[in-house]
């Protein structure tokens, strides 16, 4: 398959891994954060830790939209299904996110009108097909998915569809990274920068990380070779004493981003003064709300949502894992109360969540290795 097989070539993977081993200083411990959950998933899915030297430690970042969504937001969204005539729609990875009274899937099993959609436009089309119902899109994601939500709202306005609204849970990546950089228990040497987000925002927004914090950032693709090459590029910067933003994913990411998408974002959305990130707390100017000009399609303005706030179970250490302070399996609930099948914390829900990825692809492997040792 084009654009996939080339980037999974076993021979090249071994070569890059050898180069990384050659370059890594054996007296040094490298802590590199991959910001994006897609990278976390690929790292575990392809067993990349197996080919890296042991002194390169990969820390999993906050770039998993489902993972940073506070449970109260899910509860708020699901509360609408209790009134008649509302269809709740969401992307697939939201369907198993636990709310206080169960996930969207569990609500659906009890009869609530809940549909999985593959694109925001599917939700809008559903509204067209069900004029007697109100269709709500529980929108989630970083700048990657926000433009398609914005375009859908513009479309709803153009088509004068009034039985459709969006509950925006869109967040922006930079404040999340900043929160991590400011976190006192965080010691990082560099970042594998998010790939998909950067297709929209470009590479420039990361420049402060190199300039103000002196950390290399390499925007990376998602195939095994992309990720290994990015790690190699970070090592080269570190060994040369450089801290710059580099673009490994230039085949997809333009340095200046997608100007058309950014324009649509600015037209429909504005920054919220603050927004709660699960595990990281309230972060100012870190999320998108729908501008007043589009209030008619804003779920939060059309309906009065209860504004539920839920504190995470005390034993769950999602925040520490999200910040990379703990490894997934070091959380007290990991693999016991909290599994991909019955997740307690959101990091266990999405396949891009560090805990789910670790549980799915690594957990028993290390158990078995320990048993052999």
């Amino acid at each position, binding site marked *: *398959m084009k654009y*996939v097989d080339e980037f999974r070539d*076993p*021979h090249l*993977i*071994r070569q890059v*891994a050898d180069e990384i081993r050659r370059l890594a200083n054996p007296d040094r411990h490298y802590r590199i954060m991959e910001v994006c959950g897609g990278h976390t998933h690929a790292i*575990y*899915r*392809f*067993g*990349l830790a*197996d*080919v890296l030297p042991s002194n390169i430690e990969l820390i999993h970042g906050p770039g998993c939209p489902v993972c940073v969504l506070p449970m109260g937001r899910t509860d708020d969204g699901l509360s609408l299904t209790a009134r008649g005539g509302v269809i709740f729609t969401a992307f*697939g990875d939201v369907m*198993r996110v636990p709310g206080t009274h169960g996930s969207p*899937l*569990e609500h659906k*099993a*009890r009869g609530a009108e809940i549909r999985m959609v*593959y694109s925001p436009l*599917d939700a809008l089309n559903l509204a067209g097909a069900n004029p007697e119902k109100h269709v709500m899109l529980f929108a989630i994601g970083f700048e990657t998915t926000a433009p398609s939500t914005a375009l859908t709202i513009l479309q709803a306005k153009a088509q004068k569809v009034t039985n459709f609204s969006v509950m925006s849970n869109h967040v922006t990546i930079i404040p999340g990274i900043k929160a991590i950089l400011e976190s006192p228990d965080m010691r990082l040497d560099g970042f594998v920068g998010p790939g998909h987000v950067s297709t929209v925002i470009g590479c420039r927004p990361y420049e402060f990380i190199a300039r103000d914090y002196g950390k290399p950032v390499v925007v990376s693709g998602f195939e*095994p070779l992309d990720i290994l090459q990015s790690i190699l590029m970070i090592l080269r910067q570190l060994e040369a004493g450089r801290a710059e933003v580099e673009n490994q994913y230039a085949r997809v990411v333009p340095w200046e981003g997608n100007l058309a998408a950014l324009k649509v974002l600015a037209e429909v959305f504005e920054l919220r003064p603050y927004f709660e990130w699960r595990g990281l707390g309230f972060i100012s100017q870190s999320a998108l709300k729908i501008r007043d000009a589009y209030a008619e399609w804003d779920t939060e303005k059309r309906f009065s949502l209860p504004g539920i706030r839920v504190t995470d179970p005390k034993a769950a250490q999602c925040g520490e894992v999200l910040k990379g302070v703990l490894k997934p399996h070091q959380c007290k609930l990991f693999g016991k109360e909290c599994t*991909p*099948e019955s997740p307690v914390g959101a990091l266990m829900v999405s*396949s891009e969540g560090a805990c789910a990825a670790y*549980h*799915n*692809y*690594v*957990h*028993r*492997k290390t*158990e*078995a*290795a320990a*048993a*052999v040792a």
Partner: protein
Amino acid sequence: MSEPPLVRFRDPQIEMSHGAGGKASRRLVEGLLAPLFGGPLLGPLGDAAHLDHDGSRLAFTTDSFVVSPLRFPGGSIGDLAVNGTVNDLAVSGAKPLALVVSFILEAGLPAAVLEAEVRALADAAQRAGVQIVGGDTKVVEHGKADQIYITTAGIGRVDPRVRITPQSVQPGDQILLSGPIGDHGITILLARGEIDLEADIRSDTRSVLPLVESLIEAAASGLRWMRDPTRGGVATALNELARDCGHGIVLWEEALPVREPVRGACELLGLDPLHIANEGQFLAVVAPELADAALAALRAVPGGEEAIVIGEVREQPARTVLGTASYGGTRVVDMLVGDPLPRIC
């Protein structure tokens, strides 16, 4: 007085995942059904029950079909209903003797739709060389079912040369797969039209009996285990084997046969082909000294040309399926969790 059966099923309500063939299904079967039905004849939870009767060994099985849409490229619910039960018998080492079929029909169903499926059942039975000898029909109010649900049950005679159990599986045994995986699940997903994807792909629904018979002729003495990886896919079937035999299963990721459209759809949708359902493939575990002969026997049958060795049994990691790539990366391949693709069969 005997001990009351131990019901361990604690899920508060039935979810779609309980029907998906993965972890939740196993919990339901092992936690609720097996403890309450458990008698001396309820054996290991394989594809078919084996009953000894008058000196010969019979296999007995049943399967229900609720697929949506009813017709899809490569087949229909009628094909699935015959092939599914025939395959369950075949991979338990049995030659099917007879099937019975039951319908649950929704009032308002056009008679032509029913007739098309009855014809599909009859044709599939003829192709598989088995007779449909009885059945039942029920009708429910409009809106209380989705057009047609079909249940088939089948009985077969187990080949006396075959002794397949998970416990006979040994480190070193080879894992054979009859052909490309994921065709059925992805075909159904695309046939629903919910995703704007088009691909030239058909369900693999077919009877695997000719393949199994050829394999038995060539390697009966070294044949340890067989399974048709339907819901939950190859990953779930092999995890059940790993759990039941106590050994590890190592897969060669690059050897797994997956057609390009299936790979493409899985990449786009974030699915693992190992979790996607098949309706015309089967897995076999064969002693290493007979693996070459077994593979040649499969490839000699029309439709078996793409059969391949996808991995082997090892002592470690115990009770786990491990995927390995030639560059040295490894991952755990888990059972299906949840239900990414409901109502595929």
